[in-house]
């Protein structure tokens, strides 16, 4: 029993740190964003695209001195550092990226809020309630839609990078690639939420058996 409360306390502390850390980071970026838009710094002057290196001079040898063919797989993450002038001329895009960032942080905070509420119900000693099933469902949907949104935004960003730059020695491709692992986790959380919903209903029935 003592071990249980210790692990719960550790979880609470970790969640509190993540929660307040995320809020502090968001506030800090909101405060710093106007400065960044007026004068792009290192943190906004690059684009990320998914590319494929088609002409590489990179080589490798085995420890025995035999030549090794170096190839890069598809969907290689490429960071393109653009000159500040580009962002000066495209402030609307920086503002759009800022909006997407805020929406993303909102989703992260919403997810963490659900987790904190679940931990609170565990602390009270009554976690098998339908509210927690709803919370798990929200978390599962956030994981799935967050993963899909990331795939689409990466795709769009890669497409934009391809419009903005003329790649030499590599190509920027527009492959839409989903995060299968996140989708599986999201689906698992949805299944668990339904299990908890049925469990909560069974417990309520048990409680109301006189």
């Amino acid at each position, binding site marked *: 029993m003592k071990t249980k409360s210790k692990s719960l306390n550790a979880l609470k502390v970790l969640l509190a740190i993540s929660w307040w850390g995320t809020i502090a980071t968001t506030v800090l970026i909101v405060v710093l964003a106007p400065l960044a838009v007026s004068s792009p710094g290192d943190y906004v002057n690059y684009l990320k695209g998914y590319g494929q290196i088609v002409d590489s001079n990179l080589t490798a040898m085995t420890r025995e001195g035999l030549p090794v063919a170096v190839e890069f797989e598809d969907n290689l993450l490429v960071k393109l550092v653009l000159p500040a002038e580009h962002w000066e001329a495209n402030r609307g895009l920086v503002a759009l990226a800022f909006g997407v960032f805020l929406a993303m942080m909102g989703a992260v905070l919403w997810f963490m809020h659900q987790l904190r509420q679940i931990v609170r119900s565990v602390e009270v000693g009554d976690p098998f309630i339908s509210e927690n099933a709803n919370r798990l469902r929200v978390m599962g949907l956030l994981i799935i839609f967050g993963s899909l949104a990331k795939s689409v935004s990466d795709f769009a960003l890669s497409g934009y990078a391809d419009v903005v730059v003329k790649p030499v020695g590599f190509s920027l491709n527009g492959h839409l690639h989903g995060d299968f692992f996140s989708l599986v986790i999201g689906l698992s959380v949805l299944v668990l939420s339904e299990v908890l919903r049925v469990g909560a209903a069974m417990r*309520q*029935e048990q409680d*109301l*058996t*006189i």
Partner: protein
Amino acid sequence: MPIRVRLEEQMKARGVSLTELSERVGLTLANLSILKTGKAKAVRFSTLEAICEVLQCQPGDLLVFEDE
């Protein structure tokens, strides 16, 4: 719910209070109240037996089916 618990009527007819019934049956006031107000989802045979014994009635006097 089509099944209605007629505990209150039976208690009134015999002049037994909820507290007294609770003590004699061995159920908590809260649980008896859930039963009386029709919020219970199920009733154990042992509970029914104890109430019938105290109120000197039949299970059919306590539970009635009412078509909605």
